[in-house]
Structure formats: structure tokens, C-alpha cells
């Protein structure tokens, strides 16, 4: 879920940019050579995949995939999602430029956390551990992002309590779907013999 322009207070927007700049600094330092086009291409994959309408019950959801992106990219998830969000803002006006810092941090930081948590599971590589990795990446990615979004909305003022609550609840179906999808993606990559850490 991307926060729109004009919602958050200035200090929140600026803090977002500061944190994202730090994340970008670490992320960009970690990639060189062949990892530059690789990060870009995977970023495009996450951009495109997040546009899929995945049916759930009578409605459909878009996926965040930040846990999965983090697990595969490590700190490079910062530049990868920054670029994807920049294009969402430019091409569709989803999110925006002043909130780009906040939105990138909301998505990418949980990705980095997911990276450290699931790394040993991916290394182990058994079916069970890959499924566990998929479930954990979804839970960490989605719920940490939801927590950030809700906390930021709360920071606007007391009138935002309901808005923040509803925003958090909207993430629950997304997490449920992503648990299944992430697990199958890890199994897929394993079966294909592609390194799980790219």
C-alpha cells in the first residue's frame, strides 16, 4: 500500500527520505558489475508482478512482494524498490515524489529484515525450510510494512485512528496470499537450480 502525496506531515516525509537515503547508500554499495543490470531486471519483475490482480474471495488484491524481493536481493532491495516506486509515481501517479522516501522505507526495510531471517532457511534448501522461508518472508514483509503505514498515519493526528486501523487490516489478505505464493516461488527457483540469493 503506497501512501499518497499530501497525507503525511513534513517531519515524517523528511525522516522517510533520510532513512531511505541511508538504505540506498548501503544498497548501492553492495552492488557492482553484473549485479547492476540484475537488480534492475528483478526490480522490473517485482513492478510487473505487483500489478497482477490476485483473486481472493469476492475481491482481488495486489501483492507487495517486498519480503520476497528482500530475501532475493538483500540490501539491494532498497534501490530496486525505490526505482519501482519512482516509476509507479511517474507513470500512474501512485504514491508520489515527496512520499517516495517514506514509501520506499516502508517496503524495503521489512525486505532487509526478511533477508536476514530467511537466509539460513534458504541455505538449508529442504522443501520444509523453503516453505517456512516463504511464510516468514510474507509475514515479515507485509506486516512490518503495514505497521509502518499505520504508525505513520497515526502520526498525522488523532482523527486518523480509524484510517490507520483499516489500513492495517487491509494487509491481512495480502499476507495470506503472499505466504502461499512466496513458498511456491522459492520451490520454483530451487527446482530450476537458480541461486536463491541473487
Amino acid at each position: 500500500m503506497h501512501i499518497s502525496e499530501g497525507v503525511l506531515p513534513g517531519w515524517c516525509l523528511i525522516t522517510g527520505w533520510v532513512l531511505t537515503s541511508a538504505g540506498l547508500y548501503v544498497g548501492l554499495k553492495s552492488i557492482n558489475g553484473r549485479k547492476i543490470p540484475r537488480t534492475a531486471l528483478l526490480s522490473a519483475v517485482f513492478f510487473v508482478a505487483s500489478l497482477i490482480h490476485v483473486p481472493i474471495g469476492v475481491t482481488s488484491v495486489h501483492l507487495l512482494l517486498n519480503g520476497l524481493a528482500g530475501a532475493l536481493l538483500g540490501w539491494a532491495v532498497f534501490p530496486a524498490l525505490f526505482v519501482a516506486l519512482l516509476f509507479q509515481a511517474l507513470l500512474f501517479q501512485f504514491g508520489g515524489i515527496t512520499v517516495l522516501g517514506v514509501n520506499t522505507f516502508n517496503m524495503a526495510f521489512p525486505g532487509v529484515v526478511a533477508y536476514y531471517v530467511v537466509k539460513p532457511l534458504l541455505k538449508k534448501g529442504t522443501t520444509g525450510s523453503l516453505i517456512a522461508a516463504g511464510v516468514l518472508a510474507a509475514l515479515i514483509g507485509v506486516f512490518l510494512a503495514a505497521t509502518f503505514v499505520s504508525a505513520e498515519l497515526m502520526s498525522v493526528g488523532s482523527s486518523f485512528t480509524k484510517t490507520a486501523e483499516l489500513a492495517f487490516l487491509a494487509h491481512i489478505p495480502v499476507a495470506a496470499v503472499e505466504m502461499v505464493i512466496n513458498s511456491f516461488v522459492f520451490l520454483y527457483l530451487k527446482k530450476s537450480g537458480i541461486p536463491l540469493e541473487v
Partner: protein
Amino acid sequence: MEILSVENLRVKLENREVLRRVNFSLKDGEKVFITGPNGAGKTTFLETLMGFVPFEGKISFKGNELKSEDDFSVLRGRMGYVFQNPDDQLFAPTVEEELAFAPLVKGLKREQVKEIVERTLKEFEIEHLREKPTYKLSGGEKRIVSVACVVTMDPEVILLDEPTTGLDRNKWEKLVEFFERTGSSLIIVTHDTKLMKRLGWKRLVMENGELRE
């Protein structure tokens, strides 16, 4: 009995008339070739039959006219389509999973799916490729798998877009034997004159968006 019939089919893509007034019919179990120069509309014709392209005119499957996306989505389980480029068609992690996709989507039980996959692997003599990732297959193997993964659907009609391109002698022979043997109706778009001579089926020519014998 007519399984597929097309009347006055017209397709416009990007303001160009790709198909103009195509009439066509296919009997149950009938097998035909469609040939013709590049860009004549052969692939578009197959895609239109699958319901992937907006069209004017009438397409019927077993006497029922197909109009909406819903009509086509039901039909697609019964009519298979082998892409011109196997790389575009294959998306599962391994050969086995690729073959299992269609029966799983149909909602068949695990054991049934397993049995179908085994039978098809044997039929196309690709048992050794079972667990191989599809991207690691050779060009010819990809082609065989792209046909096999449609066959596991047990379709009544199969549309094939240049299925023999890039096959070695042995795989070519295997595929041709399958074409002869199968009970499904076939529409094969091809330039392979050897194939057409060998099988001797009806030959239709697509030229400038028109189909004639």
C-alpha cells in the same frame, strides 16, 4: 460432425485488417494444414480461435457460438494451443510440472495426474527429462515438451503453430508419428513441405488475410 466452424471472421489489429472474411470448418477427428507467406495472418487466426484476439464474425465449437471471454475460457480446456515459440509457452519449473499443469487445473486427483504425466512422458520418450528445468532443455526438447504439455490436457482439438521448426530427424519422426496417431483434431500452421507431403492432409493457404484451399 463439425467440431469447429468459423463464418465471416474478420480481425483488425492496430487499424490493419489482418483477417478478412475467413470461412472455415473442421470435422471431429479431421486434420488440416494451414500454410502461406509470413505475416499472412496464420498465427492471428489460431489466436482468434483461442479467444485471445477481438474479432467480428462467428466462431462455434460443436454448434455453440463463442462470444464472451467466459465462453472461450470454458472452451480452452478442450482446445489446446502449441505456441510458435516454446520459450513463451513453458513457464513451470520442470518438465514434469509443465505436463502436470493442465490436468491439475482441470481438478483431477493427484494419482490421475501422475498417471497421465507418466503416460505422456513415455509416449514422447522424454522420461529422462522428467525433473529437468525447462530452460535447460535443448530447442528440440522444448518443442516436444510444448506439445506434450498440451496433450496431457486431453484436448479435442489442438492448434499447432509451426511445431516442427528446429527438430532433428529423430524428434521430427516422433512428432509426426504422434500427429498420425492422435485422435484429436489438428490444425497445423506450417512451412514444412516434407511434413505436408508425408501426411497428405488437406492443405489450406492463408494469403492477405484470406483462407482458401
